């Protein structure tokens, strides 16, 4: 809170970028590159493709920045591009299922540590256990804090459809996490018996 300057909004930066401001566009890249990368990783389960698609998203945004209308949220506009790219990528090939080694191998024995580990790995779990659409909806809702209406707009789906996707995603995650919890409890129980 030491800086007294107010950060310009995404929309203000997008307008500057639309008028040829490269610095403004770079600011937008800095704000969104990791978020988009995360979105693609959770959705496609492939880091290299996630990097490529993040770059392609910014390139398309730059090409079409003249069409951006500031009355719409820049975030929704950007994630609409990202979502379309993810769909076309998903059509090209099925996602690669990569096992997170850290998710399983680095488990600590104590139950509270397990709970922390489980929490910490919630996105890795989401990445593996949700469908691409469910993963996208969860990221946009809980990480990008977008409203259900905005998510529906950016994914070109109905509000009801997004609600169903969210509900199923939460249910699926709860089931997977519960299973893991039970497995961990058994492990902790057996360790306690050994000591």
């Amino acid at each position, binding site marked *: 809170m030491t800086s007294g300057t107010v950060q310009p909004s995404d929309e203000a930066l997008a307008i500057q970028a639309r008028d040829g401001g490269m610095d403004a566009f770079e600011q937008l890249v800095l704000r969104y590159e990791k978020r988009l990368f995360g979105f693609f990783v959770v959705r496609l389960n492939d880091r290299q493709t996630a990097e490529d698609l993040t770059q392609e998203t910014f*390139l398309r945004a730059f090409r079409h920045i003249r069409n951006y209308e500031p009355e719409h949220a820049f975030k929704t506009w950007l994630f609409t591009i990202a979502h379309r790219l993810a769909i076309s990528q998903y059509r090209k090939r099925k996602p690669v299922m990569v096992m997170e080694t850290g998710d399983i191998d680095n488990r600590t024995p104590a139950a509270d540590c397990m709970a922390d580990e489980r929490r910490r790995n919630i996105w890795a779990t989401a990445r593996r256990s949700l469908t691409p659409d469910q993963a996208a909806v969860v990221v946009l809702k809980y990480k990008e804090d977008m409203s259900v209406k905005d998510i529906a707009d950016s994914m070109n789906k109905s509000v009801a459809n997004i609600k169903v996707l969210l509900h199923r995603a939460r249910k699926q995650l709860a089931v997977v996490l519960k299973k893991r919890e039970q497995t961990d409890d058994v492990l902790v129980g057996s360790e306690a018996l050994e000591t």
Partner: protein
Amino acid sequence: MWCRKHQSAIADALTMETEIPGVTRKHMESCPECRRFLADSRRLETDLRVVSLEDIGEPSQGFHAGIMAAVHAENRQRRAPGKQVPRRALRLGWVWAGAGAAGILLIFTLTISWPAKPPVEPSGFANTGGFALPLSVPSLVGTADDMGKTLDNRYQAELGALRKDIEAGLDFLVTCVGG
């Protein structure tokens, strides 16, 4: 059976960030299953909000530089007016080329197959001297020679008009592809 309905209402309220309906709240007072469902759902939501996406991994070194290099390259291409090729025109290039080729083929076919002279009238028809064709073609009145000349002129005029139309069409295609 009722729990499923109430849990659906709870999920809906969480999704839309609205109040849980009174009926469901009342049901939860006596239903530990639904109370647990709400607690678990809230915990899950909190975890999803709090835990950073960066925990699933950072992009590789030079990621930002790579993006900006691509954007700057795009910007340079956009600013070079001579080198800029409209993407839509580029995409449709093959379509236009195909249409042009079809047009040229059409002209070639017409030039080859179109008779140089109109068909010769039957001799009996030519010997009739002065005659009148049906009223629908009032201009073709006179001797067979006159009629032959008239038809020839009309044929030439129509062929010329057709050639002009095709040339105009080709010019248009060239303008579209070039512009």
